[in-house]
């Protein structure tokens, strides 16, 4: 699919990001002095208490939210305004309710003016890969929450983006489907070499998928610590779950997150 981005440089660079939202009555500091560099091909997972600015962080990288201060770069270019070299999976599936599953996936191609035949072929591949076969024409309200989220994932992958930003993409899935989707995403990441940033509330998901886990504090969001995940690049779900290194990291993360939430 995509060539692995082997070139040097950073995929995503964030330095001293601070974001304040001010309304008439109050001022919220969503992010406070966040710096993080992400290498091409990395899979960074972000965990943190609710409302600590994880979604905001992804939106800054995508150029959808302008930071109050600080610098962001994507693929070594400064981010000013919305970026199109990315695939974004939103916290809600954000599907067009009048389009069937396949047409929703192909929206990506239509909006970008991609080659139709090629996009259609790729959409069919993705549909098969994510187990949506047979539901190509189903409208979003005819799909389960998990299936909707899979459609959103296919849509984000359609144009083979070098950077994939995912905001709790599997939050609406049941445990079993979630594991399957994790394994599937892991495989896609290995095969494509895409740089992925994934926000999650699941410690297991963060450890299984990530090459690095970033832990954020309660609002104002700061990066408390980043953990490298010392697990093989090629992971199998059952194996990882029984790996003592997984247990240790998961326990550490749980402790850290507990104290982060308690400070709130």
């Amino acid at each position, binding site marked *: 699919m995509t060539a692995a981005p082997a070139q040097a440089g950073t995929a995503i660079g964030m330095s001293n990001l601070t974001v304040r939202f001010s309304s008439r009555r109050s001022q919220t500091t969503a992010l406070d002095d966040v710096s993080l560099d992400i290498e091409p091909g990395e899979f960074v997972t972000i965990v943190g208490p609710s409302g600590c600015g994880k979604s905001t962080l992804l939106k800054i990288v995508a150029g959808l939210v302008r930071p109050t201060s600080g610098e962001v770069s994507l693929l070594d270019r400064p981010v000013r305004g919305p970026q199109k070299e990315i695939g974004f999976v939103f916290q809600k599936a954000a599907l067009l309710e009048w389009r069937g599953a396949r047409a929703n996936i192909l929206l990506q191609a239509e909006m970008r003016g991609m080659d139709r035949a090629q996009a259609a072929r790729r959409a069919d591949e993705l549909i098969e890969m994510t187990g949506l*076969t047979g539901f190509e024409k189903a409208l979003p309200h005819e799909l389960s929450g998990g299936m909707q989220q899979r459609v959103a994932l296919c849509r984000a992958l359609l144009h083979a983006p070098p950077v994939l930003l995912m905001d709790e993409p599997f939050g609406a899935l049941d445990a079993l489907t979630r594991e399957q989707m994790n394994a599937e995403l892991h495989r896609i990441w290995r095969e494509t070499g895409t740089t992925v940033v994934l926000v999650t509330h699941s410690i297991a998901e963060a450890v299984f998928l990530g090459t690095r886990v970033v832990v954020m504090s309660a609002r104002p969001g700061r990066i408390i610590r980043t953990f490298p995940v010392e697990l093989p690049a090629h992971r199998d779900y059952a194996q990882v779950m029984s790996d003592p290194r997984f247990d240790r990291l998961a326990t550490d993360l749980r402790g850290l997150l507990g104290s982060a939430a308690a400070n709130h």
Partner: protein
Amino acid sequence: MTENALGTAGQQAATEAAGGDRTATSSPPPGSAGGPAPVDSAQPSTVGGPPPDAGGRPPRPTLGRRALALADSLWRPALVLAAFFAAWWFVAAREYVPNYLVPTPGQVWTTMTDQWSELARHTMVTLYETVLGFVLAAALGLAAAVAIAYSRTLDKALYPIVLFAQVIPKIAIAPLLVVWFGLGLTPKIILAVLIAFFPVVISGVAGLRSTDPELLDLAATMGAGPWRTFRKIRFPNALPHLMAGLKVAVTLAVVGAVVGEFVGASEGLGYVLLLANGNLDAPLLFADLILMSAIGIVLFVLVEIAEALLIPWHASRRAGVSLTTS
């Protein structure tokens, strides 16, 4: 088809089923025809197709099923209409009310058939004014709605004008329009436009503004310009609102045309109505009223059909049944 789906994605279907109980608590029950639309649950459930089988999706309604659904949605209004005619006939035939005030349905029918060629000509005139007025109102209304929804400046500039145009009593400016534009079709069409314009603007603005900001963010990450975003996301998203406004507008357009004819005309159903009134010709008056209503109803149904074709996904038709909105 569903079987095929289950066959190829058997594993997936199994997981869906496993997650079933979780979904049931967190999202609307998949069995209650129409999902989140509360309107549907109020209807007697004689029609709604078979409940979607678990993991699959409900089949699209076939032609036969649609005809059945249509018949089902029509028998109640038909019954009410029949009862109304029976009561009318009863009151008029027994002369509880003198016939020069309320003619019998038979008298009205005779008048209508006897003077059909004349009445048809006048009906066509009013229909023409109404349709032209409605189409212009829809086009202008949509343009104004887009301008208002997209530009803060135009919003501030246009909204007061639109509101002013709405609150001025249109019937009061009808004579003025006749003075300005004469007795031809122009003042009637202008009046129809003026009356039908407002609901189109209001519904259009509401529809365009109702776009989920997340969808607009999505469009931005796809590198789409404003035109593509409008065409693929904002406009289709606004259609359900817009169609509701158009339905109101089309019935108002009839009023506009007829009021225009009242004030000064030599043809059209409004003109005939005044004539019949002056001659105390009750059967003609009633025939005329029926034709006016028929124009409104036919145009309304046409807009509903357009709606059903344009937005089959819309919640109010998720069950794929009624032709008339409840």
